[in-house]
């Protein structure tokens, strides 16, 4: 398993896509920090951008890589290696590469310019979002048979998490505005890794008032120690559950 991961990382390092991604993230972060002396504002801007780019790149890159490596996976399956170890090795290799890009592109500038509790929250949240979306990419890839369908499904997941989800929540709020929705909203947030991460960071930034009328409730729930623990563990589940499902599908899949 670790051997496969090692070779995948070596393969990815030699390609230019992930290097471009790292440079893009690093440039965005550095430019934002340099152009504005207010570090907090800078972190907010980075959060906004990171929560769109990171899930998109993670899920699309992992899906594309999975399908491009389909024949390689076939070759490995014909070798005396457990199917489980093959897929886990691939997940480990791909996710750690993308995570590495995130560490170099975002964590490093943030650590240099804005090392604070908020900065660290951003690093952790972004890292977990990377893992969640790579994990989702594996689910999407094993669920579908061909590359175009796989990437289509991956894009749908991203659209759902980054764009459609907010609209759905608004619709939900409008429709049921006569009822107390606080508890329901917390459950709803847990259904979207991007939202979990964003709220984690915004609450640490202490600008939850900007988040409308449920902001206070979030603050009460998420701002406390248990709230952070809840969101981190939910994100953790998002990083593990899809890959477990993918393992289950892959163990029965015809290649």
């Amino acid at each position, binding site marked *: 398993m670790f051997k496969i991961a090692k070779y995948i990382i070596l*393969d990815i390092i*030699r390609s230019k896509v992930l290097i471009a991604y790292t440079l893009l993230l690093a440039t965005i972060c550095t430019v934002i920090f340099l152009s504005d002396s207010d570090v907090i504002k800078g972190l907010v801007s980075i959060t906004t951008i990171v929560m769109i780019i990171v899930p998109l790149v993670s899920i699309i890159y992992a899906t594309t890589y999975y399908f491009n490596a389909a024949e*390689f996976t076939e070759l490995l399956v014909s*070798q005396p290696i457990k199917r489980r170890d093959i897929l886990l090795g691939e997940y480990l290799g791909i996710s750690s590469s993308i995570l590495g890009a995130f560490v170099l592109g975002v964590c490093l500038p943030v650590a240099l310019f804005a090392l604070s509790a908020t900065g660290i929250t951003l690093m952790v949240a972004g890292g977990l979002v990377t893992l969640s979306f790579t994990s989702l990419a594996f689910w999407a890839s094993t669920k579908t048979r061909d590359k175009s369908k796989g990437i289509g499904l991956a894009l749908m997941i991203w659209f759902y998490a980054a764009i459609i989800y907010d609209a759905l929540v608004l619709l939900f709020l409008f429709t049921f505005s006569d009822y107390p929705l606080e508890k329901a909203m917390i459950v709803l947030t847990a259904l979207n890794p991007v939202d979990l991460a964003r709220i984690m960071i915004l609450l640490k930034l202490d600008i939850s008032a900007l988040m409308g009328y449920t902001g206070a409730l979030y603050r009460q729930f998420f701002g406390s120690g248990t709230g952070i623990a809840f969101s981190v563990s939910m994100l953790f589940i998002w990083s593990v559950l899809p890959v477990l499902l993918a393992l289950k599908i892959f*163990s029965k*899949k*015809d290649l």
Partner: protein
Amino acid sequence: MDTLIELSHIKKTFGKLQVLKDISCHFESGNIVSVLGPNASGKTTMIKSILGMVIPDEGDIRFCGARVNKTFDYKKYIGYMPQIGRYPDNMKIGQLFDMMLDIRNCNKIPDTDLIEAYRLKSMYHKPMRTLSGGTRQKVSAALAFMFNPDVLILDEPTAGLDPFATEILKQKILAEKANNRLVIITSHILSESEELADTVMYLYEGKIKFYEPLAALQMETGEQKLGKILTRLLTEEHV
């Protein structure tokens, strides 16, 4: 001759299409089996079932007597050459061989005959994505033979190879047979099967039409050429 691989009542359906309809057969060591059949007759699916790449809906696959469905350990006795070999784009040929050695953890001395015969060493620094189809086939062939496997499964091995490379491969296959190995080959080139095969299996629409030694087939039909034997046997059925 020991029975190495045994298939019993293998069935496989893809969607509505039944690709393998109750396949039962066994393969012995020291034998070259040529699997023939029209396109979509289930040749590759059968091979992939043996390798655990396709998981049959029903039936047992046995290797040296033990049931091996959904296990992986027996694959260390098998060398497989796929129809189209594709490898990580950025990896160089040398790295690919090193990786396979590393992954397989083989403690036997690797068989580098084909690497030498195809002069692959001089191309060790070339990335896989820059290779032509034929060179990739050579790499696949070298990989299949590298671990001295007891069973060789070659899926259309000569498609895309030049005549010289084909000849080298044929000699290698015959040498392996002499080492009491089992070689399973699918091919559309009849002259080639005729030259190599001891036993011919003909698949048609997911069933074994016949599976007999070549000599017996020649006796039965009174023909020497495999092409004619096939025409004779298959038209007789239809008439």
